[in-house]
């Protein structure tokens, strides 16, 4: 039984409003996305946002409730998993414990009826790609977590899949190994030009490996863009919060022209740049702790901060300070500060992102008022 070996060329993978419901819960809700050949796209979001379910739908492991998946002109969502020719790397690797490393990697080729000599060649190639050439005869249980991860990647690579799907591939590794594997995955992608759909909850990981990031929340797309776009111009306060804008603070809007917004509240005034439309009397400002810088009291965005807690973190200090009315703000500094100090800080106006007030931001725990002491 020989099956068609695809040459792996296609123009575009398109998800058309795909949905997946579990009972009443919409785990994936009308997600549309197109991935060009050779692109590395990361689905990013906290646990429960539907990103793994979406990936499972693309793989065919989870049937769609609605929507379609197309690969150029052929519809793939009606095909069973095994006929899609996608490679998949699972979070827990799912290496077959009864097969050696070589047999694991050969699996996808053997079930396609590929000739033995070709299988051997491909296994050797795939294992050399992940630098595990000497481990052919080991069983998965004899390998470390990082090695198992590499075997899982080699196994997915060996059949030359049209698309590579990766479901949180690094979440079971320790911190250092995770960094190594991250660059390894990026290297493989660049070397092989493999179209990749990558699921992660780690924003740093998504930023460093992907060409494009899709941020999901409750099964819906919140933002789609390059890492730079998502990082520096989050589309809404939810994405901002997720991308490390730890300070999400509500202010009154005093003035509003084009993208520049004047804010006041918590005893200070601030200028920021609006993202999306800002209407209404209040707005939410999102500020990264790193963007709160020391000094220059004459700048328009300068304000005093009374330090309430400080943590030494090696190269810099992370600290918490109070605005004049007691609102907490997170900041960083290379200068040593101590609780009780009052420091003058400012935030560049283009680093204060202003969003329309929404319910979620209003309930954000980072805004909980701490009584001034």
């Amino acid at each position, binding site marked *: 039984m020989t*099956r068609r070996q695809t040459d792996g060329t296609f123009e575009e993978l398109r998800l058309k409003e795909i949905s997946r419901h579990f009972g009443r819960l919409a785990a994936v809700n009308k997600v549309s996305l197109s991935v060009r050949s050779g692109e590395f796209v990361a689905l990013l979001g906290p646990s429960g946002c539907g990103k793994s379910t979406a990936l499972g739908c693309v*793989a*065919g*492991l989870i049937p769609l409730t609605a929507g379609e998946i197309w690969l150029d002109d052929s519809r793939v969502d009606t095909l*069973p*998993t*095994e*006929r899609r*020719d*996608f*490679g*998949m790397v*699972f*979070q*827990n*690797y*799912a*290496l*077959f*414990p*009864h097969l050696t490393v070589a047999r694991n990697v050969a*699996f*996808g080729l*053997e*079930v*396609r009826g590929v000739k033995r000599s070709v299988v051997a060649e491909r296994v050797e190639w795939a294992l050399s790609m992940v630098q595990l050439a000497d481990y052919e005869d080991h*069983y*998965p*249980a004899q390998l470390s*977590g990082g090695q*198992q991860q590499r075997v899982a990647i080699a*196994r*997915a690579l060996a*059949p030359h899949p049209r698309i590579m*799907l990766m479901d949180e591939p690094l*979440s*079971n590794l320790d911190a250092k190994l995770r960094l190594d594997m991250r660059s390894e995955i990026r290297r493989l992608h660049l070397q092989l030009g493999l179209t990749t759909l990558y699921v992660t909850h780690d924003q740093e990981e998504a930023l460093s490996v992907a060409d494009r990031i899709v941020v999901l929340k409750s099964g819906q797309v919140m933002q789609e863009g390059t890492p730079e776009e998502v990082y520096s111009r989050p589309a809404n306060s939810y994405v901002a919060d997720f991308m490390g804008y730890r300070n999400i603070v509500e202010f009154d809007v005093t003035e509003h022209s084009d993208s520049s917004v004047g804010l006041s509240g918590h005893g200070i005034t601030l200028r920021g740049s609006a993202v999306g439309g800002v209407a209404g009397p209040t707005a939410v400002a999102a500020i990264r702790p790193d963007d709160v810088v020391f000094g220059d009291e004459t700048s328009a965005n300068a304000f005093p901060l009374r330090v309430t807690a400080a943590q030494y973190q090696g190269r810099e200090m992370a600290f918490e300070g109070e605005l004049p009315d007691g609102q907490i703000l997170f900041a960083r500094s290379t200068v040593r500060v101590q609780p009780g100090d009052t420091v003058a800080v400012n935030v560049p106006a283009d680093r204060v992102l202003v969003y329309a007030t929404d319910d979620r931001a209003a309930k954000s725990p980072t805004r909980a008022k701490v009584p001034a002491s």
Partner: protein
Amino acid sequence: MSAAPSYGDAVTIAPIGSLRGRLKARGIDRGLLLAVPAMVFVVLLFVYPFLYGLMLSFQPQHGDAFASYRQFFSDGYLRATIWNTLRLALPVAVVNVAGAMAVAYPLRKARRGRQALSTAFIVPITFGTVLVSDGMLTYLGPNGWLNQVLQDIGLIHSPLVLIHNYWGVFISLLITGFPFAFLLSLSHLTGIDPAFERAAAALGASPWQRFRRVILPLWAPGIGITFCLLFMLAFAVFPSAELVGNPSSTTHVLSIAAYFEAYERYDYSMACAITIVAALVELLIVAVVLTWRARAYHGASTVGKG
């Protein structure tokens, strides 16, 4: 069965180098006394009687030490009990395990169906062979419902003889054994991480290939154990061989022969010789299956991490 490091043990401080200290370092201390009562029970009630039986078997009423064994193997009627027992136990175990696999496999994802069937099946297990035999005597008898139905729909013209012969015992073992096989093999099957099947599908394996190349090898160890237990259960057949079988010929099994020697002829030596032979034959078959299982099996059926 790995032992977790126990912080709960009483910390007895003993001088380094003392006997107690050295024993403690090897895991021997007073805490182990907790296991002593159970060990004493097993030794007194199992090991001692077992050895006593072994000894009795070598002390025949007449002749030298091996006379009972020699008589067992030279007497065709007694010797045939081995064959009579295996002829029941092996096919029953094979049919039950194969049937259980066929029923369990499609159920591996259907949680609700699994629960309902498991509960339905535990009932005949609880009833046991004596009760099932009682029911079979009426139900499968010449005037029983089954023969009536089969005759009424014209499938047969004269009643099938399903009791007081080989098939009666076979059926009784099927009824009490199948639920066992089903529950055991299902529990092993559901213990296999579904991720393996998904991974195989993602790698292009068809449903049959997924079964043959991934599920079956991972299921095999559990199937091996299930087969052994089923075989042991059927091998010990006693009440149903007497009640729904033909205990003087086709279902003259080892247990019946041993019982007869002990309680009808009062030849304890012969009775014990028969039970020793029974244990050896049973353990031999179990050992063969387990050896095969150990050879065929590498790794674990669950993912190590996550």
